């Protein structure tokens, strides 16, 4: 069997149904083999978008996403997508074409050392030099990408490898001597954790993206209700517990809810599950949860003790550990703490000033939520992302898809495309900014071409809003290079030019109708909401401040 056919066969055996990518000379053989396959290929219009789409597909469905690119510029265009998946532990496999092995190192046409380039941003990568190893390597790649702490794996395929004739034997299982993720937590540590929980008067669970990755939402809910403990989440952990649940305090950190920040700060026990204590979550790390003992449950031992001190480390899969932990704890009433937190929740709700003739960006999100609470929401990066996180209350961990670790503008739209591909029947909405959306706007062509009916809501504030907010608050309103709007720019026309539906909404009274219409149409829609330009995201934990130093706007 030709190497190229072996590759496609292996992908079929892995259960791959969709691939996002762009062909080119070095990977043309693989595309030729793909031509006869049942696998659907979606031709994105930029390789970065192909990788983000594979990433969005993976986050929405739990299945490993797959992206293809050719050598050289095709491969280098995947870099941002790979780094993004790496930071957020998203399982994807990226396959790139490469110049023939005989030419590697000669600066051949469209040669780029993509395995060298992606070494620090992949969980693992391969340069295949022996075609007979193809089946084994593909099996390894899918195993590594999707197990333990998931992440991107890249396979670089020299052209001669894709032409070579090999025997196809797909291994059932592989045994990697250096790769054995630990899944069950240590019984003694679980015991110690349960003792701390039973002693605690002010326990708070901090849930991260690991809940989604290990599908541990039910176990988390059970633990939270048994103790009972309030749950705050990281941005990646949104939906780890339904945000309508009375124990859920929403997301915590730089733009999280004030009551989540206070609760985490005042806690005497933090039970952190599947999170890595990023600086956006902890605030000033030396003053993070100053009164608390910390239990940290994570599958990646290197995350434990990396950013904050930990009293009880538990290395293991969140689902298994929580399932076991809940057996060791009993209900205990903590009335005073409950009242205190609920008091905060009542006193410091998320809020903004509504205005009759100006569209407030928060209002748009509230309306999207009201009309379509079950939608899958993706976001771009900036203020739009934070408002989406604040005002859209998700129920499931796979319902909110956002670039957390890398903060990649241009992620949301192709990620929505990936999520929509995984779930054609669901509504998928990208909450976008007028800056971010332009970073992958070309994917409107893909969406129209393949009937991927993603809805894009541009919160058009005429600025790189989040940067402008920092300039307003910390740089004396010196708006250096953050203005975006100019006479003649029309997102509506751009959308129409691609063959999608475009709308412009300038009045609050039109918001609801526009959204209703968009949700009814079965094609991709872009709505350009002209929102208040100078609106800021609050609450805010200023950079370098502790969580209890959160500031709010006077309303």
């Amino acid at each position, binding site marked *: 069997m030709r190497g190229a056919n072996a590759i496609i066969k292996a992908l079929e055996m892995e259960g791959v149904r969709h691939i996002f990518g762009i062909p080119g000379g070095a990977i043309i053989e693989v595309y030729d083999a793909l031509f006869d396959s049942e696998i659907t290929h979606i031709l994105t219009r930029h390789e970065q978008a192909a990788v983000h789409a594979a990433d969005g597909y993976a986050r929405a469905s739990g299945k490993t996403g797959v992206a293809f690119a050719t050598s050289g510029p095709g491969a280098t265009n995947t870099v941002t997508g790979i780094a993004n998946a790496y930071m957020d532990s998203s399982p994807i496999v990226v396959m790139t074409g490469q110049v023939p092995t005989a030419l590697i190192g000669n600066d051949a046409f469209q040669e780029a050392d993509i*395995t*060298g380039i992606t*070494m*620090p941003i992949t*969980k*693992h990568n391969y*340069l295949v*030099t022996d075609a007979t190893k193809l089946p084994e390597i593909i099996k390894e790649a899918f195993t*590594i990408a999707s197990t333990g702490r998931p992440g991107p794996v890249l396979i670089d395929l020299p052209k001669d490898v894709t032409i070579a004739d090999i025997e196809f034997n797909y291994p059932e299982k592989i045994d*990697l*001597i*250096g*790769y054995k993720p630990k899944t069950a937590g240590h019984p003694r540590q679980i015991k110690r954790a349960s003792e701390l929980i039973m002693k605690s008067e002010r326990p708070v669970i901090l849930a991260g993206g690991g809940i989604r990755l290990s599908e541990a939402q039910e176990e988390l809910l059970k633990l939270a209700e048994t103790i009972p403990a309030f749950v705050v989440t990281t941005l990646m952990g949104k939906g780890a517990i339904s945000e309508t649940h009375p124990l859920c305090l929403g997301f915590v950190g730089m733009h999280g809810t004030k009551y989540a920040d206070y609760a985490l700060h005042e806690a005497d026990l933090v039970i952190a599950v599947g999170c890595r204590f990023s600086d956006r979550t902890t605030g000033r790390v030396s003053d993070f949860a100053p009164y608390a003992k910390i239990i940290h449950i994570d599958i*990646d*031992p*290197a995350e434990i*003790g*990396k950013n904050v001190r930990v009293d009880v480390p538990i290395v293991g899969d969140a689902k298994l550990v929580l399932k076991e932990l809940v057996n060791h704890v009993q209900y205990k009433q903590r009335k005073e703490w409950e009242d205190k937190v609920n008091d905060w929740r009542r006193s410091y709700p998320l809020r903004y000033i509504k205005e009759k003739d100006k569209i407030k960006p928060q209002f748009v999100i509230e309306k999207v939520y009201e009309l379509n609470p079950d939608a899958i929401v993706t976001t771009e990066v900036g203020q739009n992302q934070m408002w989406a996180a604040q005002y859209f209350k998700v129920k499931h961990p796979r319902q909110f898809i956002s670039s957390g670790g890398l903060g990649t503008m241009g992620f949301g739209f192709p990620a929505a495309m990936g999520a929509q591909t995984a779930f054609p029947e669901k509504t998928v909405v990208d909450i976008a900014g007028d800056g971010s959306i332009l970073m992958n706007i070309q994917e409107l062509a893909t969406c129209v071409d393949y009937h991927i009916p993603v809805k894009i809501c541009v919160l058009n504030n005429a600025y790189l809003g989040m940067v402008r907010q920092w300039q307003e608050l910390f740089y004396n309103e010196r708006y250096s290079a953050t203005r975006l709007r100019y006479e003649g720019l029309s997102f509506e026309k751009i959308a129409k030019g691609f063959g999608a539906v475009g709308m412009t909404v300038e009045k609050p009274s039109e918001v609801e109708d526009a959204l209703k219409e968009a949700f009814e149409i079965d094609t991709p829609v872009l709505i350009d909401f002209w929102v208040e330009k100078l609106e800021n995201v609050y609450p805010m934990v200023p950079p370098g401040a502790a969580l209890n130093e959160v500031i709010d706007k006077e309303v």
Partner: protein
Amino acid sequence: MRHTIAVLVENKPGVLARISSLFRRRGFNIESLAVGTTEKESISRMTIVVSGDDKTIEQVMKQLNKLVEVIKVSDLTQDSVERELALVKVAVTPEKRSEIIEIANIFRARIVDVSRESFIVEITGDEDKINAFIDLMRQYGIKEISRTGKVSMARGKRTV
């Protein structure tokens, strides 16, 4: 503090690059690194000397462990035999010749190349011994030094 870490890795192309890339990216300081094969052909052993506080060393070991091709990571700082080899090319004059030979003998170093103007001296031992020898050679004029970096092995029953 300095730690000596032994790393067993799969003997595959790119492994060394992966490890040095990891050290660079995470800002860990490599003081020396020695690589060679082991009793198993498919496995290589690296000895890495790295400096940092306890938290850094813990991260070094954990991050190394995450690499797919890394099989085992052990800290050999305590209770192990450590050796390094150095070749030192030192200038000789007829008057100093026997003096240098004498010092080499005291250090159990061997003269492995002799020419009219220089010797190459081969010396093995722990780092202090080699440093002491090199210091003594300076007065004669060192032309060149090549050191292997440290290799290490736990004493007694313990194996990595």
